[in-house]
């Protein structure tokens, strides 16, 4: 298990999620735990609590995971997924208030350097308009 913060990408679109993950991989290789998911339970545009939970599991790190989400439902469903994690993990899964692509790439770069979950989110959140 990695000591670096994991990155989870959640988009309404499976293609956007995969493409964003590709960009993150190009930046940090396999040094940072990374998982992505997109699409509703039928595979159309939307998000899926079960898939988000699986992605958090895949990217899990003892240092925590930072989630990057695109639009409203992705955020609400990610909050739900976090609440359904085992209690001891809940505080270590955090949704970053940052743009999906830029946030994931910057957050992963910060994670690659061994920063804490808090620092990873703070760096990504600097990208958000005040």
């Amino acid at each position, binding site marked *: 298990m990695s000591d670096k913060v994991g990155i989870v990408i959640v988009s309404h679109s499976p293609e956007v999620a995969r493409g964003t993950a590709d960009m993150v991989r190009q930046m940090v290789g396999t040094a940072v735990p990374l998982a992505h998911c997109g699409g509703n*339970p*039928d595979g159309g*545009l939307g998000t899926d609590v*079960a898939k988000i939970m699986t992605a958090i599991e895949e990217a899990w790190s003892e240092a925590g995971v930072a989630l990057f989400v695109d639009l*409203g*439902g992705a*955020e*609400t*469903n990610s909050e739900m997924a976090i609440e359904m994690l085992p209690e001891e993990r809940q505080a270590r899964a955090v949704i970053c208030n940052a743009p999906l692509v830029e946030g994931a790439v910057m957050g992963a770069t910060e994670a690659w350097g061994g920063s804490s979950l808090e620092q990873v989110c703070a760096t990504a959140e600097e990208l958000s308009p005040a």
Partner: protein
Amino acid sequence: MDSAVTKELIETVARALIEAEAELTALDQAIGDGDHGINMKRGATAVLDQLDGLAEKPAGEAFKATGMQLVMKVGGASGPLYGTLLMTLGKFWPESLDRASLTTALDAAFAAVKARGKSDLGQKTMLDVLAPSIEAVGAGNSLEEIKAVAKAAAEATVPMQAIRGRASFLGERSVGHMDPGARSSQLAIAALCDALEGGS
């Protein structure tokens, strides 16, 4: 509450939402992303698939399990929102049902949805229908009156400007359309009242 009643309530609401797919989609296309109808239909269908298993539980547990189905199957923000509503209602569902204990459970469910959506009254959401409807239940209004309150409340979202959710991107352009979530809430309340009226 009798399990036949639980079953009828859940089934009637699910069928009403499935029937409203086209209308909810049209409302959501105007100010959202057009998926509210299909998302609610997906959730309601998943609930109907499990209906017998859900309805044989005690009412509180049945509502919790129904909420969980919505959370897992809807695929949009309305899943966690309606799911949280039902899961909280189930959690607070009283052993002996009377108006006061029902109102307490409904108030708790409302507060949970409000927290989940980080929203408030007057922001063109389902809350704008739920709040006056719950108030009508607490005030002892008849089922017909509660239905009328919910209908008027959904219509009152038309001139509101959206602050939360996808519709908020439209700013002032969200004015002039009924909120899809307010409409689905109203339809659910109407279906509940119809089922209770038929059963009483």
